[in-house]
């Protein structure tokens, strides 16, 4: 998994290198931060605090003055799963470009589970899935004194549904296909039972980043 993660981060940076070579009005924002929230154990109702790592890269174009629309890619680590969120994003800025600016952002995408392994035996298959993420944020952009870059700090809310499925096969050698998308309440072909655990993560995101 770590190998995949490194490859992904390398790809993101390669993409950014390309973007650096381009002229304005393209914009790239890299953010790292934490996702925080509270989660409850199913078995004893006990509440636990969670704090996990998040990284994201936004690359977009200024479509109208101070309004940037682009693509969004990241890595979100949660206690149960590590996701690659991929989607579209928007950044809107207030104020003069030469000085500090408030900004608002919205990322919409899908949490991919490519980093997660599917556990399969003759009798069972266990796998992760995730759903649509929504991530509104507000922050501040502080331009550097020299150069064409800025520091950013933001807080936001990230909504990310995730699912974990534990399926029992109809027979030992049926090896059913893993459904491509979420199949809650439906029994996929080749399975005699399916235990589904859904966790809708409501996270506070706190991030710092650079923008260029």
């Amino acid at each position, binding site marked *: 998994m770590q190998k995949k993660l490194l490859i992904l981060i390398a790809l993101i940076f390669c993409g950014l290198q390309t973007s650096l070579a381009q002229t304005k009005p393209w914009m790239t924002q890299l953010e790292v931060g934490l996702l925080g929230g*509270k989660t*409850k154990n199913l078995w004893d109702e006990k509440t636990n605090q969670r704090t996990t790592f998040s990284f994201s890269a936004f690359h977009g174009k200024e479509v109208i003055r101070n309004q940037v629309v682009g693509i969004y890619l990241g890595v979100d680590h949660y206690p149960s799963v590590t996701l690659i969120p991929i989607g579209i994003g928007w950044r809107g800025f207030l104020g003069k470009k030469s000085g500090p600016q408030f900004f608002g952002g919205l990322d919409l995408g899908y949490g991919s589970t490519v980093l997660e392994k599917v556990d399969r035996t003759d009798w069972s298959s266990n796998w992760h899935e995730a759903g649509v993420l929504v991530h509104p944020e507000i922050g501040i952009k*502080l331009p550097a004194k020299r150069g064409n870059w800025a520091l950013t700090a933001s807080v936001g809310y990230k909504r990310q549904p995730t699912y974990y499925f534990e399926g029992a096969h109809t*027979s030992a050698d049926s090896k059913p296909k893993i459904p491509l998308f979420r199949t809650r309440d439906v*029994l996929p072909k080749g399975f*005699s*039972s399916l235990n589904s655990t859904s966790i809708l993560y409501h*996270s506070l995101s706190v991030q710092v980043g650079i923008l260029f």
Partner: protein
Amino acid sequence: MKNRFIPLLVILFGSSLLFSCMDEVNSTYTFRTMMPVYLEMKDVRAKLISVAPAQEIENPGKIYLYKDYLLINEPNQGIHIYDNKNPANPINLSFIPIEGNIDLAVNSDILYADNYVDLLAFDLSNIRNIRLVKRVEDVFNHLYQHSTGKIITFKDTVLTSESPTWAFETMWTVRPNMSLTSNMAKASQSYGTGGSMARFTLMDGHLFAVDASTLRVFEVLNPAEPKFLKPIELGWGIETIFPFDQKLFIGSNRGLHIYDASTPAAPIRMAVYEHVLSCDPVVVNEEYAFVTLRSGNFCVNGVNELHVLDIKDPYQPKLKKAYPMLNPHGLGLAEKYLYVAEGKHGLKSFNASDVLNIDKNQLEFIQSMKSSDLIPGPKSLIVIGPDGVCQYDYSNPAQLKKLSCIQVSNPIEVS
């Protein structure tokens, strides 16, 4: 400017941290089960059975070949009638809706079909005007739940619960696919050829029906007037029945029962050939019985074999030879050729004239032809598999040619 923003940012961070984000965690358990359904027979009998227009097959059960007609049971729903004059193009004619129907047999234009605890007789002489001519009540009374007087049946159901445990306490966690395939019933001229599970069969003016533990005998000398004669207890685990030469070969999951049916009204047990717990459809010729034993579902012993039994002395059946197989389901015998449905592994044909060297006389093994049961009919080899009900030209057993496939919306899962 900077000074204005920093306090704002601090306030924003602080208030955000106080904000409580509680995750929503839910767990559900979805499972396939057989739900008990309780019915009053008077309500079932009150419903008029009228033949409906042709319907698409959802989930084929037993198949039965009679003259140029192919009858396909939709378990617990009824019977589809196909015109099979041309096996390359079977025509869906009509559907007889029969609740609780599992098996069927045809004798001189009279179709026998179970309707929960009753036996129904339909006149097929005019295929465009099929009529119910007789109902014999309360013969399959093992379905009655005696404490209530209601019948109990099971419906294949997918349920979702919030807890994985309660299901096991209240439900019948029987797998719907535990149903056991059986085989063709070789028949005399006026009878049809039966298939899958073959729990109904006809011989010498009598209809024999088996359930899990009982053989029931009906006299059908007047085909339109079936008369229930008596039940014969066989022991648990009965799966298939195959008539041959005034004998009944009854496959159970513990062995093969041979009954002398020379007096069809009163079959007498001749012998029981016992083997390990396994599923075992059977076909027979004058000298040998061919039995497949397979693992899977309730057949838990992990044995996948074809047994050839010497039945020249039916009172003392002897194992002649056992051949390893992959996962044999149904099988069929046409003259000297033996066809074995090998489940997901495919379909095999053998020349079985030398019973000691059947494995060396394998003619064809078509791995792409997944199959669970088959009937070698007069015009075609009829095979049930994941593709539906398919027919093959088997004039050359070493080279089967696909003629047609009747598509089904919920294909059989072949393990």
